[in-house]
């Protein structure tokens, strides 16, 4: 023990820490498992390290998760692909722990390894593993097994294939709803590997059973299978078998199932083609848009654009638009909000005329919505509609909406609209902005809430980037200059912050001629917080301005601050001076 060579010492400790009491150290060791494997060599990794890991699988979930992940990339360390099978037992054990994230990771790693294994090894090791897991007493292992069938099936010999299909069928009827859920959610992946002949005879009946499951939670996962299976089977079978199931689901008693249908319907309509979509799915979708449950309408409203894209514009205008109109006046704000976040996307599909006639009134009404999120969602997607009809038609309604949001009582709403100001500025152009929004931007700098002032300072910077230094000189700097003498030191501090952000954008000349004097002036402030912020701002300005300015103006000011009675001011002044020295040296 004591004979470990001194250079090997760190690795020796690393290995020992696989069993340390401190979980953090164990975790570190597991994350460096590849290093340990390289030190032990391939043979000892196979014969010692992997069995060791297999035996020590009662560790904390976090460690097990890391182990499951490491093992997935461990093929090179055990001697290449011909030895990959030694990695299966520890991962098999991890497939049955009760923590879902560990199991999922183990399944993922098994799939990674399985994808590289030779056909012979897969038959010899992988398929028996899947069968074993599917037959374990505890449901956890059976849950994991469902995610492995699609790896095992393609290379299995004919006899095993039949067996695997049967086992999967049994898993879909397991006593435990957890297993049925897992089987339902992996059905699409498994079905993709099954031959078309068996798809209809074996998989579709299994699927139909799942769609009739008594547990909502299973049925709603079967909805996902609809879309996946729909793409696999012949279009005729899809229309004949899967389409009725989906339509039935859209009338399910459980709103959660209908919610899933609302989310997945457009995927199926891609699979069945335009005619069945028009005859069957469109009525189903319209029904969902008018569902009693707000959650379902939210999901359906969120897919309006995607679904309309599949239809031709006439159908969309004829069937979808009336619903959209209703939804824009829905009693649930969340429905309106979901609609507002996607409705702008319909404009390119409907074309200019339809947009102006049909959609514009809806935009305008949503812009006047009582609920700020709805208005914000419209504003955030303004660029999409701008491309189709131009901004002029909207600008009249836009401005009051923006002003109202800008003065909203909730600071989070104000924060959200500030984030969109640069987007609005780029869409609306300089003149409009100067006229209407400039004052707002300045007003936010004096908001009561720090987050707003902070965002406002950032906004000023982004505007300067958008419109250029000259515009900023005209429209921002004078107001900023004004505010630096505000009574309230918090506002003065915001200005300092804005200056430090603006300096790199505006460039050396404006900074040293206009901004720097302000900052130097502020160093005489009576509030220490202002003074040490001056030191910080000066530090950030140093790389922007000429070296001569640094020597002539900045350094003397900092030197003065370094003698300040306040300890914080002295600290930041000293720091700034240090960095000015470094800049001096490097240039």
């Amino acid at each position: 023990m004591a004979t470990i060579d001194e250079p090997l010492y760190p690795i020796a400790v690393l290995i020992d820490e696989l069993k340390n009491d401190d979980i953090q150290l164990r975790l570190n060791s597991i994350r460096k498992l590849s290093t340990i494997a390289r030190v032990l060599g391939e043979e000892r990794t196979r014969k010692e390290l992997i069995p060791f890991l297999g035996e020590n699988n009662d560790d904390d979930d976090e460690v097990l998760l890391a182990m499951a992940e490491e093992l997935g990339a461990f093929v090179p360390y055990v001697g290449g692909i011909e030895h990959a099978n030694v990695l299966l037992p520890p991962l098999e054990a991890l497939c049955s722990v009760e923590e879902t994230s560990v199991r999922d990771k183990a399944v993922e790693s098994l799939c990674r390894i399985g994808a590289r294994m030779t056909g012979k090894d897969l038959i010899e090791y992988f398929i028996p593993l899947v069968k074993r897991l599917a037959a374990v007493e505890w449901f956890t292992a059976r849950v994991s097994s469902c995610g492995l069938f699609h790896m095992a099936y393609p290379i299995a010999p004919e006899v095993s294939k039949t067996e695997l299909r049967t086992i999967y069928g049994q898993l879909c009827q397991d006593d435990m709803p957890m297993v049925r859920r897992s089987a339902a959610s992996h059905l699409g992946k498994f079905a993709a590997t099954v031959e078309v002949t068996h798809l209809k005879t074996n998989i579709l009946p299994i699927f139909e059973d799942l769609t009739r499951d008594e547990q909502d939670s299973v049925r709603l996962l079967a909805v996902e299978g609809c879309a996946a299976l729909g793409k696999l089977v012949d279009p005729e079978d899809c229309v004949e078998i899967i389409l009725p199931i989906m339509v039935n689901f859209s009338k399910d008693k459980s709103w959660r199932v209908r919610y899933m249908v609302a989310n997945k319907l457009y995927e199926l309509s891609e699979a069945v083609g335009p005619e069945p979509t028009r005859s069957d799915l469109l009525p189903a979708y319209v029904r969902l848009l008018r569902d009693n449950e707000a959650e379902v309408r939210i999901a359906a409203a969120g897919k309006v654009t995607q679904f309309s894209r599949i239809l031709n514009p006439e159908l969309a205008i004829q069937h979808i638009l009336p619903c959209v109109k209703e939804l824009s006046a829905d009693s649930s704000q969340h429905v309106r909000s979901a609609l507002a976040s996607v409705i702008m996307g319909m404009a390119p599909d409907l074309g200019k005329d339809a947009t102006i006639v049909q959609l514009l009134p809806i935009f305008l009404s949503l812009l006047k919505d009582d609920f700020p999120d709805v208005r914000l969602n419209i504003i955030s997607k303004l660029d999409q509609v701008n491309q189709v009809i131009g901004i002029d038609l909207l600008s009249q309604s836009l401005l009051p909406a923006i002003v109202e949001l800008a003065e909203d009582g909730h600071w989070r709403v104000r924060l959200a609209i500030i984030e969109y100001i640069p987007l609005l500025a780029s869409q609306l152009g300089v003149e409009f902005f100067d006229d209407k929004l400039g004052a707002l931007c300045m007003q936010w700098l004096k908001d009561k809430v720090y987050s707003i002032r902070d965002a406002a300072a950032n906004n000023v910077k982004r505007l300067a980037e958008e419109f250029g230094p000259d515009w900023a000189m005209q429209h921002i700097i004078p107001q900023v200059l004004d505010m630096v003498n505000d009574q309230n030191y918090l506002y003065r501090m915001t200005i300092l912050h804005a200056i430090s952000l603006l300096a790199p954008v505006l460039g050396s000349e404006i900074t040293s001629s206009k901004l720097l004097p302000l900052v130097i002036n502020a160093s005489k402030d009576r509030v220490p917080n202002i003074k040490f912020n001056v030191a910080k701002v000066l530090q950030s300005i140093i790389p922007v301005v000429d070296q001569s300015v640094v020597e002539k103006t900045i350094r003397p000011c900092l030197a003065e601050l370094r003698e300040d009675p306040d300890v914080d001011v002295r600290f930041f002044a000293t720091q700034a001076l240090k960095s000015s020295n470094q800049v001096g040296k490097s240039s």
Partner: protein
Amino acid sequence: MNGGDEVVAAPAGPPQPLEWKFSQVFGERTAGEEVQEVDIISAIEFDKSGNHLATGDRGGRVVLFERTDAKDHGGSRRDLESVDYTISRHPEFRYKTEFQSHEPEFDYLKSLEIEEKINKIRWCQTANGALFLLSTNDKTIKYWKVQEKKVKKISEMNVDPSKAIANGCISSIASSSNSSSPRPSYLANGGSPDKSYSYLTNDFPFPPGGIPSLRLPVVVTSHETSLIARCRRVYAHAHDYHINSISSNSDGETFISADDLRINLWNLEISNQSFNIVDVKPANMEDLTEVITSAEFHPTHCNMLAYSSSKGSIRLVDLRQSALCDTHAKLFEEQEAPGSRSFFTEIIASISDIKFGKDGRYVLSRDYMTLKLWDINMDSGPVATFQVHEYLRPKLCDLYENDSIFDKFECCLSGDGSRVATGSYSNLFRVFGCTPGSAEATTLEASKNPMRRQVQTPARPARSLGSSLTRVVRRGADSPGVDANGNSFDFTTKLLHLAWHPTENSIACAAANSLYMYYA
């Protein structure tokens, strides 16, 4: 005629009343021993198989018991039976383990103390031989895993820990060997950080056969096992009011928690969000007339749940109908008899507990005076009402004065649904037969001699209420002389919590800090 013939000849009427016998007691008090407040049992629950029993107490502890007589080992069990077990086949339990589930806390924002008392325990799906259960106090629900672990010891290591400690820098080595920035203290051990660290990254020439001197730690697994309870999830900060119920769903992935005004739906694996599914809070709290007192999921239909209210109604909710289930699917309440209304009517109508029967067709509810059995297909009224406390009616005023009227008695159904049970005062509990025509109504005392009280006629009013109130909590069984007349009611000894074994006629009930088990 022999005995066998008699049984055959017996008419197929209601089942015979059960003969209850004492089985076990845990935490029995000796005469005159004072009960510690923290030891008082506040929750009892059998798991689905009936092989485990959990109790929670006011001190925030959860105690687990396991069944000793029916460990299923297939063929070997038959052998054991022929040798050892000949007669006694009633469930017997033994102490398994206990753990501290909740600690007293303080909510600094609301300046509120949060008691550690366990309000409810619910078992979850067993997996990998480990037990899982949910426990809750007033505010926080916790998900526990209890597992037997083999004791493991590390016998060999590369670096002799004692030597390393003697060097005085084991910890710094440990951290520097793993962290990406070796600390200066590493130098003290003689190596240069840059050089030694590189072995872990790239330059080190890994020999193809590995380095033979390095070994993996050798772990010796002993035959000893220890039970370890670990808290796997904490579901907190979702209830403004006190949690009165939790209930796990048959889908195995969700559960509900109910407080006075709201019911929340959780996913077992997600502890940072829950969905509010029922909210009875009025816009103006002055309009509040009714609170939620108990809630439970249907045993097999994952979309159905029932909750009871302080006004004596039970609402059945269908989660499929809508995301927010403020409108019930069905309402069960009994119209009060006209003219009987008094100051206490509403207080005693408040339902303290509801339980679904195993098949999910019947719901049992307990209010202060009665047990009621409801058929969920019949919302016109209960199918049966059992008087539990009718004899207390003249005493309601006293009971109100000393707050006993607000006691929350639990109720339970037998596994086959043919009997119901609930607790009462003086450590009594009552069992009723609820099959049609059954007149079974047994009163038992939580003591070693449960049938002792059977002769008593509960309709007779209590004799001396005042004196019993001042009496110290005492053990009845060991001092039978104290209330030999059997009709003084002791309102300080109340049997609130009890549970019926899921498959056999066996009841576990809590009398203060003692857990009594009976079988029939």
